[in-house]
């Protein structure tokens, strides 16, 4: 039985791999889609975030066991926020 921390690590690692694969291979089945992961497995794929999230929440109601990624997106891109807190 995996601990919650182990599940979260699996989720993050799977998301990282999916994103790497889709950035390398635009023909990947996940390319350009929102991918929902629960307990270390892909359980929801959709064209938009809201649709993916609704499906993911139905399959795994515990948010701590869930993770998501927008496949093919370059997450190293810096997003500028200019309002000074």
């Amino acid at each position: 039985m995996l601990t919650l921390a182990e599940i979260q690590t699996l989720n993050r690692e799977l998301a990282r791999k999916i994103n790497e694969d889709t950035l390398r291979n635009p023909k990947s089945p996940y390319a350009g889609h929102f991918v929902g992961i629960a307990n270390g497995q892909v359980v929801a794929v959709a064209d938009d975030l809201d649709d993916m999230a609704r499906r993911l929440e139905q399959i795994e109601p515990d948010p701590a066991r869930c993770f998501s990624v927008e496949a093919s997106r370059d997450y190293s891109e810096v997003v500028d926020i200019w309002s000074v807190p």
Partner: protein
Amino acid sequence: MPRVCWPLINNRPAVQVVLTLALGGQPYTRNLLADTGAGSRWSGPDLLLDEQDCLLCGGFAHQPIVLGGAYIGSFPTYVVRVEIPALGFNSRVRAVAVSRFPAGFDGMACFRFLNQFIYGNFSDPNQFGLEK
């Protein structure tokens, strides 16, 4: 088209969104700075929120996002459900978890979020509003 307007907070444009507490399901209202200079149309988050708010409202983790400018570095990101009842808006959005906001605000609404509405002061300089 439905429209909702809010008074400025500290003379800055505000948007009021409703989250839902995971325990008990009560509405949890947050006042956000409407910041069209935060992010762009296609990249970046919809909102910036306190991490505790994301977790209290049942947000699940999304791939972290790198911010620059007022916030620098990689920040945890969550998918949270957001409502604006007067507009019938109810959707999951990406919220980056940061800990400091301009005085009087609980977070920020980024350009990506605001740009799905018609936004502005609708001829009253004391308010800011959204129309869907």
